């Protein structure tokens, strides 16, 4: 069961990092006609992503929270037995960053509300960048740790 939840958690994370990266690029894009692939990739309406990103973030965090308990019992103890403190450390950082990001979501929603306020453009850019970095970090760390030891191995 936990392997299924882990796969679902990973799939949600893929959708989340795809969406938030799209939104991130759109916030940093200089307004200009989109000509090539990168320009068209960035020329999305960033505000349209906000609610979906929040739902995906919360859902991925809840699933991560559910599989955290068996991780603590099975995988973390193995990492300790294998004397891999850095592997445990990157996960500790992941849990803190994801929690901080979770509590940033109300502010993220507030500053992405339409009509977009010009005076909050910097807040939108930086908050989205921070969240995107948290999500990418969480995804990569989860992937690497699962390579070291997955559930049921």
């Amino acid at each position, binding site marked *: 069961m936990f392997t299924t939840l882990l796969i679902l958690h990973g799939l949600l994370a893929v959708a989340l990092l795809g969406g938030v990266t799209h939104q991130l690029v759109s916030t940093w894009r200089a307004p200009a006609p989109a000509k090539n692939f990168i320009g068209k990739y960035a020329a999305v309406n960033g505000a349209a992503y906000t609610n979906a990103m929040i739902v995906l973030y919360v859902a991925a965090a809840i699933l991560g*929270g559910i599989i*955290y*308990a*068996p991780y*603590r*019992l099975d995988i*973390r*103890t193995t990492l300790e037995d294998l004397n891999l*403190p*850095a592997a*445990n*450390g*990157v996960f*500790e*950082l992941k*849990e*803190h*960053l994801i*929690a*901080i990001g*979770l*509590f*940033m*979501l*109300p*502010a*993220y*929603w*507030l*500053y992405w*509300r339409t009509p977009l*306020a010009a*005076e*909050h453009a*910097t*807040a939108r850019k*930086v*908050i989205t960048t*921070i969240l995107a970095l948290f999500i990418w970090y969480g995804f990569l760390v989860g992937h690497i740790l699962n390579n070291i030891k997955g559930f049921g191995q």
Partner: protein
Amino acid sequence: MTAHARLAVFSLVATVAYVLAYNFNWALFRYYPLLNQISLEALPAKTSGPTMMYYGWIATALIAGLIAALIVPNKIAAKLPSSVAWVVPLLLVAFTLVYEKHWFL
């Protein structure tokens, strides 16, 4: 904006409260995965297995954020500069990196 300004207060207080909670171990409760049991007090390590504080820290921060969002008047919340919503998290991330550096030394 004004009607929802308290959301920024929630984010500010909850993020700070979360970092304080893990730094000072202010967990609302502890979870023992081996026993599948939540406890308000520490159980003997020999029989209870590893302790998980994470859910308790989240709960502490959530409650602190909600209380602050309810207490702070909307007028004051609306005066909060939007830069606070990203400067404070960046500082908290910096603190977290320093706090967790012992894993990598």
